[in-house]
């Protein structure tokens, strides 16, 4: 499992289930950068080293073929966007995993400053840009902060803009469309937002973005639910209670955040398949998911998001559920890691000022086309 906040609740659940069933469970925690390679190697060689794996949803298309089919389909309490990425093929096929962490991007903004400048909650990206200019100038701070380090970082911050402008990376027929006018316009808009971001954002990852929000010198950003708790933690934050969380702003199309669900699955090569399935069904039951939510895990069940006692404790839950319901997964292709890397390189170059948006998108489309042709 992932050795980050996403794995904490599952680790505790595994130990609890093991103690209750008299089963010795060995938990292997790996940093995100190594988790994929370890799991992929285990799955492709069917060593059976792991009985349950935790996987990030973009990895599912390349791993699904080596996962064991679920013995029964999940119930309808799970959020649909989370269930869709557990099916192979996407949306319509059989289930090979259960959703455990309900991550979808949210929009973070300084509610106190929006009120001060008499601005309504940002509904569109144009409003975001206008607010960034106004608050940035008025408060001598950065109106917006984003991450544009190559790879996953810049792609994750660009996808909500790309979708809101009506663009995409690959269309339903598998054709590369990231060189469309809509995609170029989205990148131009990203660079415009970059003017109100801190210098050096072209090298930022999630920790730098959150540091600027926590220090109170940036007014808005796209971020993941994992950072919500830190915003209201007086030990880490100078903006306790001042950050509001909302679903993604719209533009030409309705606002959509990127889905970043973590799934639990049983490899085909597992030597204890029956126990492994018992565990993943148990861990994703409403009662267990509620326990996990109390340990900081964003749930994947509607009933848990809507529980009044949890809403009282986690003020962002309504926004998280709305964002999760609308969230879109990254393109469902087994080559996504390679495509994301290429796409991220050109987006990062554009943000660093080394390429203009049109040039960057044409180059990205060519590189992605080459990757798809090769496979």
């Amino acid at each position: 499992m992932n050795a980050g906040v996403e794995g904490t609740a599952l680790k505790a659940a595994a130990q609890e289930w093991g103690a209750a069933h008299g089963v010795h469970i060995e938990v292997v925690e790996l940093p995100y950068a190594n988790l994929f390679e370890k799991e992929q190697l285990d799955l492709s060689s069917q060593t059976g080293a792991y009985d349950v794996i935790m996987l990030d949803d973009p990895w599912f298309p390349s791993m699904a073929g080596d996962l064991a089919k679920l013995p029964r389909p999940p119930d309808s309490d799970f959020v649909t966007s989370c269930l869709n990425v557990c099916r192979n093929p996407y949306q319509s096929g059989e289930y090979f995993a259960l959703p455990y962490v309900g991550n979808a991007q949210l929009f973070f903004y300084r509610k106190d400053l929006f009120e001060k400048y008499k601005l309504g909650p940002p509904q569109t990206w144009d409003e975001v840009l206008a607010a960034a200019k106004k608050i940035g100038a008025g408060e001598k701070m950065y109106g917006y902060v984003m991450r544009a380090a190559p790879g996953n970082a810049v792609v994750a911050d660009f996808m909500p803009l790309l979708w809101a402008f009506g663009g995409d990376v690959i269309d339903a027929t598998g054709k590369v469309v990231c060189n469309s006018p809509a995609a170029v316009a989205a990148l131009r808009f990203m660079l415009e937002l970059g003017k109100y971001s801190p210098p050096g954002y072209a090298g930022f990852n999630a920790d730098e973005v959150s540091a600027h929000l926590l220090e109170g010198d940036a007014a808005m950003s796209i971020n993941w639910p994992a950072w919500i708790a830190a915003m209201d933690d007086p030990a880490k934050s100078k903006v306790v209670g001042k950050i509001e969380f909302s679903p993604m702003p719209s533009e030409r199309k309705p606002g959509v955040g990127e889905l970043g669900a973590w799934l639990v699955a049983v490899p085909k090569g597992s030597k204890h398949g029956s126990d492994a399935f018992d565990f993943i069904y148990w861990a994703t039951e409403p009662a267990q998911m509620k326990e996990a939510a109390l340990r900081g895990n964003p749930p994947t069940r509607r009933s848990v998001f809507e529980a009044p006692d949890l809403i009282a404790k986690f003020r962002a839950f309504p926004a998280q559920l709305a964002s999760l319901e609308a969230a879109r997964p990254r393109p469902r292709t087994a080559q996504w890691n390679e495509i994301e890397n290429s796409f991220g390189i050109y987006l990062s170059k554009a943000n660093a000022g080394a390429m203009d948006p049109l040039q960057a998108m044409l180059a990205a489309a060519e590189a992605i086309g080459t990757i798809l042709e090769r496979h």
Partner: protein
Amino acid sequence: MSVIAAPARGRRVPEGFWWVFPSILVLLALSIYPLLYAVKLSLADRRNFTRLLSDRLFFTAGVQTIVLTLAALAIEFALGLALAVLIDSLARGRTFFRTALLVPMLLPPVVAAVAWRLIYNPQFGVLNGSLRRLGFDTSHLTWTSGEGSALASVILVDVWEWTPFLFLLLSAGLQAIPTEPLEAARVDGAGAWRIFCDVTLPLLKPTIVLALLLRGMDLVRIFDQIFILTQGGPGTATETVSLYIYRTAFRFSNFGYAAAMSFVLLAATLLFSRGLLKAMRAR
């Protein structure tokens, strides 16, 4: 028992062969087998090698690896030699300075890279913070985030961490130089610079070759600092061959192409080593 006979052929196995035989087996299993397996992987699809010729990212990464290696090696050598000569000439405090200078090298590269990532942060980092206190405008100083400054920033970290390695080797080399030729040169009236160029440097040449070879080979494979500091960015500004090989193998699961690139990197390293040896011999 001094020899073990091999009765079937009547040949004599050298004394001690069976004592080292387990080590040979371990070496074959851990070193030779993976190497042969990598050869098999790279040749499984012949397009792996032809793809290299048209892979722009591989070309960019290759050029940057060369630039980084040569620049870092030149700076580290110049600084390491200067420090070694300077500290060797001190009458007192040599042990203290030698120990103090080794501290960066003793840090794990990942720890050093994390520390430098914080130091380089344009807004909260100590580097820009200090410059701001001194009255400089740091708004354009983005270090690892700038297209033009990222590679130089990575080189600076490498210089900080590995100059002590060259200093250590060259310092040991200086101490091993016999005093007689130096005294003879002094008696003949040679100045300090002349003695350094005509006596010290030629006598130090074997150590210099060894130091440049070891550090050069390590630089060609540079990975951890870049992975932590920039992940190859912004764009491809700090992409190196090792980083590209890692991604190809472990992120894109294309082990054959990664193996093919590894062999090209190995060949380049061998050529670099041979070229360096030749150049040093020719002088």
